């Protein structure tokens, strides 16, 4: 059942099944050479893939990228036969490791419902690195995602702090972003009006910046620790990720950020294309869902499949994340990027939007999003076009280790395929 594409083991290479868990590259002194790949390094300098290129990984690090790279003795060699090698794919902003079952609240830790604005709510403390979902997504080529707290009814429009994480079971990255929901969907969290959202945010900023402000407790929005955390976050120029779709709301968010000197990214941004010039001028990135083309709310009347293409054409930095945040949704990021290409986004930009760009936005570009010499290896060898739904990974390396392509899903598959073949009815 573990059927693998053609892999030639050359020279003194070690013979190991690709699917063997954590084979090879994780043992000290081991090395892996991917020979003759089409390498999408996705570095800032690059603008096209490198054909016929070898990538050598030693002790978990990329040590050579080029033609005819020599394989040290004992190197496992994989002939890519021209297939695409990309950095690991971004799983988007969501709940991988923060929920196991969407509707089972006991398994879901992505939102606080304390009825208070708690910017100090740090969702990364809920991260479960042993959720089976990490293994499933990783085996499908996703190597990092962003743990994004949600603004839930009973909580606050300031959802709290989140962070990027690798899907190799390592701890979330130390850098934090602050997640905030704006617009009609958050009206329930702002007393019924989107205008009150900016009012509440401004009050929170005032409280954080003036900790000695005399206020009776009931007038305060933030707890003492909330003020402290928010102040530190502002001093560090932390990233506020603002969920907002309507064009005028995006424009207001840009003005608010300018006045308050906030570092922001737009998330969702269904109508961002209508304010593309302003977004480009403000150098504010947009994290969008290219499949979001229906006016499914009155904040999205201008939603279109060409959002990503138009934003890129205007020079806006674009990353891709599916709007849905469930444990399975990360699997659709790559498909969404492919659809963005189908609807006019340059392919290189679409691959960047699911590799380097989100890694840069969330502060983990040193670990994810590009293939560079000296970096911890994070690469995926694809059976075909890296953005096509007809392709799947043949090799996944992240955190410097070759990862298994087996998961709970393949275990279920294998067990029950045997039963189907045996003619068992139930």
């Amino acid at each position, binding site marked *: 059942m573990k059927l693998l594409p053609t892999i030639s083991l050359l020279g003194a290479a070690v013979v190991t099944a690709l699917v063997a868990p954590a084979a090879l590259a994780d043992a000290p002194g081991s090395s892996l050479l991917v020979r003759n790949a089409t390498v999408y390094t996705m570095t800032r300098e690059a603008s096209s893939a490198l054909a016929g290129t070898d990538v050598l990984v030693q002790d978990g690090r990329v040590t050579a990228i080029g033609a005819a790279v020599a394989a040290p003795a004992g190197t496992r060699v994989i002939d890519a036969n021209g297939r695409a090698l990309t950095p690991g794919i971004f799983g988007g902003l969501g709940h991988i490791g923060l929920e196991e079952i969407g509707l089972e609240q006991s398994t879901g830790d992505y939102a606080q419902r304390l009825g208070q604005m708690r910017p100090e709510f740090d969702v990364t403390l809920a991260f479960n690195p042993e959720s089976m979902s990490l293994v499933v997504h990783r085996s499908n080529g996703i190597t990092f995602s962003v743990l994004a707290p949600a603004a839930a009814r009973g909580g606050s429009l300031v959802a709290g702090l989140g962070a990027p994480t690798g899907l190799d079971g390592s701890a979330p990255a130390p850098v934090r972003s602050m997640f905030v929901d704006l617009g009609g969907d958050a009206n*329930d969290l702002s007393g019924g009006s989107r205008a009150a959202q900016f009012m509440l945010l401004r009050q929170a900023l005032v409280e954080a910046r003036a900790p000695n402000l005399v206020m009776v407790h009931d007038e305060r929005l933030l707890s003492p620790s909330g003020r402290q955390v928010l102040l530190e976050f502002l001093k560090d120029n932390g990233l506020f990720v603002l969920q907002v779709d309507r064009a005028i709301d995006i424009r207001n968010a840009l003005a608010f950020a300018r006045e308050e000197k906030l570092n922001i990214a737009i998330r969702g941004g269904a109508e961002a294309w209508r304010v593309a010039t302003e977004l480009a001028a403000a150098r504010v990135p947009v994290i969008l869902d290219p499949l979001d083309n229906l006016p499914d709310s009155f904040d999205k009347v201008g939603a279109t499949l060409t959002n990503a293409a138009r934003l890129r054409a205007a020079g806006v930095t674009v990353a891709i994340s599916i709007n849905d945040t*469930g444990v399975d949704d990360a699997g659709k990021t790559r498909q969404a990027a492919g659809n963005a290409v189908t609807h006019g986004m340059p392919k290189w930009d679409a691959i960047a939007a699911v590799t380097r760009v989100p890694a840069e936005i969330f502060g983990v570009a040193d670990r994810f999003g590009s293939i560079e010499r000296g970096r911890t290896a994070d690469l995926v060898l694809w059976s075909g076009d890296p953005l096509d739904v007809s392709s799947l990974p043949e090799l996944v390396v992240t955190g410097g280790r070759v990862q298994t392509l087996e998961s709970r899903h393949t275990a279920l598959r294998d067990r029950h395929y045997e039963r189907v073949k045996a003619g068992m009815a*139930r």
Partner: protein
Amino acid sequence: MIDLSSTHWPRALLAGLALTLTACSTTATVAPPAARERSVIAPATPTPYPSTYKPAASVPTLIRGATVLIGNGERLDDADVLLSDGKIAAVGRALEAPAGAVVIDGRGKWVTPGLIDVHSHLGVYPSPGVEAHSDGNEATSPSTPNVWAEHSIWPQDPGFEAALEGGITTLHVLPGSANLFGGRSVSVKNIHAVSYQSMKFPDAPHGLKMACGENPKRVYGNRRQLPSTRMGNVAGWRAQWIEAQEYTRDWRQYEARSAAGAKDLRPPKRDLRLETLAGVLRGEILIQHHCYRADEMAIVVDMAREFGYRVSAFHHATEAYKISNLLAENNVCAAVWADWWGFKMESYDAIPENMILVDAAPGGCTVVHSDSSEGIQRLNQEAAKGMAFGKRMGIEIKPEHAIRWLTANAAKAIGLEKRIGTLEDGKMADVVVWNGNPFSVYALTEKIYIDGALRFDRGSPRELPESDFLLGQPAAAGVIR
């Protein structure tokens, strides 16, 4: 904002929520046990709310030199397809263009039957998803076979035209899955109309949406009423089927006496709930059963045997791969996704190879469905994802085979296999011309014909949206959807 009672229906919520729906249906190729016992069972008119659909005017159209996926498992390369009088007139090599025919250069293009989505809530949960548009679940009683989804359809849902661009020419619109019996589902042609009757597929059987598992027991359990458990679900269904059997018997007795010339007979009182259930027992209405878990599907198969009806399709059926042979033996289709999992406990064992393993059983009937206003726009990609996972496990599915999951098998699941779903002579000319192999993320529809009439042409974009809702909206100015 995350909110389970929100007026928006994000994807996972749709399949998971109280406000959700799913449906599963059976196919109509095997006569149900009760089909021969046709009785009148007294609707006031033979076909209330009749279809007023009329094929648009069309000219004979010859598509030349394309790769053609017939829908019956065959593929023809460099082949021609002739549409005439709204029907498939011929498929083959070097066909002659009739006088006045429009000839389309199909070289490099792929031609397939129009895609069919057997699980849609377009119109009943339309965009925009405002509270006033929540028309998909009559969640006031666990048994509402008396309601008809078609009476909730808002034809101005912009989702219809987006689905058309994805190649969808027929869709089956269902009530949600809050109830054990959710109501009648309906097949519609994907054309723009002011009233749903003008979309309604002529002479198509109704479906009856039923739901297993978490949704009914959650919705009614929270109200401290039956069902609050899975055993309560089964008890709830059986009680209704027993009533339907009695209702059928009463009507049959009445008809027999009436036929024997008895005078002064009063017909039994009509009951809209039982009329639908009796229609199922007579084989005229097809069961579309929302059911995730293999063990629950096995119970439903037994229940159908107990009461003498057939399940046409299980919908969602995320564990269908565990009982592929059982489904095939009972001629039940499984309408599935590729990669939805984990949004509720009963979807925890969903795997992307589900469609492959259902297909692997002899006689297996895989259908790829959407349950989503986004997914319906790219059913071809949904199938392609499953095919990729099949290939990874060593099962290569060819395009000419996979297209059946979106066409012929789907038509079978909703009882329309004699009318649509393949490019065989005499069928309705519902045809899609693609710019390449449709099982790719880069594939786009170029021309879409419904009953031989060109309904979508990417080369000549519409100047105005079809949906009234999008007319005159400043924010939508300049949108190319």
